[in-house]
């Protein structure tokens, strides 16, 4: 027998613990898939299994969090356990769990194949987690695609509905289009530096083989990631896709993939293209991406908010609002980019993570309510459908109002702390453009009051013409709502612990990641 197999396979630098959260989820997904193929359609079982898997994954994540020192990196530096990974992964797990809870009602209503749906959610979460943990462009790309492909399918899961089909198709075409740009960017960065490892790229941007390719590659990456997180020139897909996709999926898409996109985006740009002393190209690169992102942030907040004003469909309004929120997160992103010290940078990154956390919670809560109110086949998602339901279903409408206020960024809610944290670092640099960016973002927040309040206005201040029966709140959705409401208040009032946890990762010395090759 040939000895090739084993002799050369020694030491692939496998550190299983580093990918334990991801692995647990993947295994859970596979298990559910197998289970579902024998006992199809048991939503309660598969949902419970998924939640157990997510909980186990969360435990594994917690273990990583408290003891990341011994294996901060693994798999030849492809996985890096740092602030981006840990904080964002926590967001993803939360998003996935809430999505599963929220979608129970939808799965029942639409007769969706429950097991397969849960598998997709779990795999999408695995993809997101890899996007956050990947310190290599291969992993980031793979995570992104895992996530995207799962989401394409999820968007089209209401198969008999044309809006859902359309949503899935548009998302698929435009998403793959964006992936192609992203990939081209990755290729050029690889060509410029000779490596796909972010740490190594960061080390060699100052002395790249082909410095000019760095700029082109950076620009293409900007387009690709911009697409994924829906920043303005590349946001065109968002409204249609969000409107057409089944409501719980829309909530998931707005919360999870966006956060995952930001995780990779942050890692590639903030950590991968730092400001390096020496190396004109590297400096120019850093300067240009910061400037470009600042301009994009200005555009994104402005367009997102102003376009949201004129919408008549709640989901569409929230789609534009999600664009605007991507803009706010970008403000923090730029702040991380210009941070003077590593500690400040990590703090800014944690701020973006925290912002995505608050946004995810709020947004998922809102979509939970909208799912309940939309009824079967997402029929009732126009503003008119919300007329005067305020006191007919006080629990739902008051929670929805709370979420709207949190999205608006009103104090005492999670959204406020999130906004404060992301606006903070960008002001520190004291550059005019960045200050203008923050001011624009802030003015836009005031503009956003108009459409967020509009929902509250129609719910409470208008009268209802026709009869309307308040939907019953199923237990699972009730739990999700409770979690989100408590979350909104908890992060609004006692966010200290969370922020400290998010930033504490950085305080520990990071183990060198470059032990590959």
């Amino acid at each position, binding site marked *: 027998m040939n000895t090739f197999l084993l002799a050369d396979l020694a030491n692939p630098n496998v550190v299983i613990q580093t990918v334990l959260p991801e692995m647990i989820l993947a295994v859970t997904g596979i298990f559910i898939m197998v289970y579902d193929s024998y006992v199809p359609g048991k939503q309660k079982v598969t949902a419970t299994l998924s939640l157990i898997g997510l909980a186990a994954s969360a435990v594994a994540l917690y273990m990583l969090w408290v003891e990341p020192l011994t294996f901060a990196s693994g798999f030849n530096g492809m996985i890096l356990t740092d602030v981006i990974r840990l904080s964002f992964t926590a967001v993803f797990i939360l998003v996935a769990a809430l999505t599963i809870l929220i979608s129970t009602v939808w799965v029942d209503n639409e007769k969706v194949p429950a097991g397969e749906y849960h598998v997709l959610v779990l795999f999408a979460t695995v993809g997101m987690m890899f996007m956050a943990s990947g310190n290599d462009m291969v992993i980031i790309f793979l995570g992104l695609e895992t996530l995207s492909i799962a989401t394409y399918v999820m968007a089209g899961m209401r198969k008999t509905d044309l809006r859902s089909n359309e949503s899935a198709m548009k998302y698929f075409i435009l998403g793959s289009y964006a992936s192609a740009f992203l990939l081209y960017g990755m290729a050029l960065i690889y060509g410029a530096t000779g490596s796909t490892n972010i740490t190594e790229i960061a080390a060699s941007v100052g002395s790249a083989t082909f410095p000019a390719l760095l700029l082109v590659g950076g620009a293409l990456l900007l387009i690709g990631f911009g697409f994924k997180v829906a920043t303005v020139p590349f946001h065109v897909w968002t409204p249609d896709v969000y409107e057409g996709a089944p409501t719980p999926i829309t909530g998931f898409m707005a919360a999870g993939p966006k956060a995952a996109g930001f995780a990779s985006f942050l890692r590639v740009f903030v950590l991968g293209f730092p400001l390096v002393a020496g190396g004109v190209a590297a400096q120019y690169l850093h300067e240009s991406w910061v400037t470009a992102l600042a301009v994009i942030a200005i555009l994104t907040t402005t367009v997102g908010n102003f376009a949201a004003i004129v919408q008549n469909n709640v989901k569409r309004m929230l789609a534009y609002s999600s664009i605007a929120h991507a803009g706010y997160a970008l403000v923090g992103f730029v702040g991380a980019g210009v941070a003077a010290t590593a500690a400040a940078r990590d703090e800014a990154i944690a701020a973006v993570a925290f912002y995505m956390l608050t946004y995810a919670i709020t947004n998922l809560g809102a979509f939970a309510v909208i799912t309940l109110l939309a009824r079967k086949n997402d029929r009732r998602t126009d503003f008119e459908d919300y007329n005067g339901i305020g006191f007919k279903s006080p629990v739902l409408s008051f929670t929805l109002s709370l979420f709207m206020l949190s999205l608006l960024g*009103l104090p005492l809610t999670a959204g406020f702390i999130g906004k404060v944290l992301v606006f903070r670092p960008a*002001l520190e640099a004291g550059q005019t453009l960045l200050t203008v960016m*923050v001011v624009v973002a802030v003015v836009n927040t005031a503009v956003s009051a108009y459409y967020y309040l509009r929902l509250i206005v129609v719910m409470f*201040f208008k009268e209802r013409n026709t009869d309307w029966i308040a939907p019953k709140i199923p237990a699972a959705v009730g739990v999700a709502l409770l979690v989100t409401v408590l979350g909104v208040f908890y992060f609004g009032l006692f966010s200290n612990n969370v922020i400290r946890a998010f930033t504490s990762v950085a305080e520990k010395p990071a183990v060198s990641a470059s032990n590959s090759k």
Partner: protein
Amino acid sequence: MEYLNENLLTILILLPAFGAVALIGHQLFWKEEAHLKWLTLAFTILNFLISLALLGNVAASENGFFFEKNIPWIEAINTNYHVGVDGFSLWLVILTTFIMPIAVISTWHAVEKRAPAFYVFLLLLESAMLGVFVTLDLLVFYLFFEASLVPMFFLIGIWGGKDRIYAAVKFFIFTALGSLLMLVAIISLYYLHLQATGTGSFDYITLLGSIQSGKLVLAGQAGTLLFLAFALAFSIKVPLFPFHTWLPDAHTEAPTAGSVILAGVLLKMGTYGIMRFNFTLFPEASREMAWIFIILAIIGIIYGALVAMVQPDIKRLVAYSSVAHMGFVVLGMFSFTEAGMQGALYTMLSHGVTTGALFLLVGFIYERRHTRLISEYGGLSSVMPIYATFFVITAMASIGLPFLNGFVGEFMIMLGMWSSTILSGNWNQVATMFAGTGVIFAAVYLLWMVQRVFFGKITNEKNKGLSDLSLREIGLMAPLLFLMVFMGVYPSLFLRESAASVRGIQKIVIGETTKGGTVDSPPEIGQVEKNLPDTN
């Protein structure tokens, strides 16, 4: 007792919020709506009584805060829950707790639909307003400042008049826009402090200390921009001309209780903010920009009065009179004299009482006739003598008749402005004279309105059967009337408490304090005046 003293302000803030939770709990388990107003009243009165405990304990000192409590909130950004009162905020706190029970009683029969939510929002509003006046951490201040919008938004939007949605949204967006810029300024301050001293801070006292000791220099463009960001937020809230357009709408559409609170307390948050933060944190910018605010204030006074004159709607008229009165307050503050600033504070208090009373009175008649148009009324004095009496007295107080509360404040403001040195040449006196015309205008529009509504023959048949004020309504008005008279004849009771604090602020804003040290001993009375150059 020590514990109680330490946490008195926290209790003040949290008690109404707790009341709101209790109301929700009550509603969940008993579902008896009749209890709600009693519960709410009990909570507000209790709060008022607690707030009176502050009175005795605030000693006269210039830079001192009392009942301080400082616990870390978010360590990552070094923001603390830091509360405390001085002589300045003391009165505003008490004004708030005083107005609240009155507002609650005023809604005794007016609120029929969705009563539980109404009282919940009322109580939450009280929490937020109290928070604004006692917070010494800028971020937390902002937080309460914004948080006060939501209950008011709902109060106007759900229980308001015909155009309530427009009014509510306008109110919200105007105020939110301004305050968000203030948020940027607050965060910038944090970083300026971080750059200057190595630690960022949102704490008012820390910032003030750094500025006074020269560690943090907020001069030049940065200072001006920050000043403007703060001032814009507060000017919208005040509201200063030309940011006043939300006020008439909000007042007209709000329910009576909402109007009373809006006029009585919410507007004061703006002037409070200018005096507390703008003057002390950016004294140089304040001095440089004072002329703008003085001009705007004078325009506000005259414009408010002139527009009030032509209003067909009583409530709108009162709303515009608020614009004029708040113009006076701003004018007084920007005179940078002790008299002017004390007068501004006093006008804030008396405006709260008087305008609150006016809105209550308008509310009474509205409950009876469901209209507020002046043309619908006429000769009411014959059918409602008590009401007419009350109304006339309140109107007089609002005009600023001597021996009523309005007079004291406005007189002090004009005195302060006259002796101010903030404008070059004789412009101070010119400004005072312009402001003085405002008083005359106020007399014109109020008296004309009173004449049209109360005197002459009853022109409208519907008014013949109107009943006079009920006992509840009289009981509601009595404390207010008493206060009008009391504040008119014995102002020093109030001014004494606040003198030291106001003087402290005044000294900072005119650049009196020596850099590097704080003033520990109270300066002698009159020292400030002596140091001012002779204007004549």
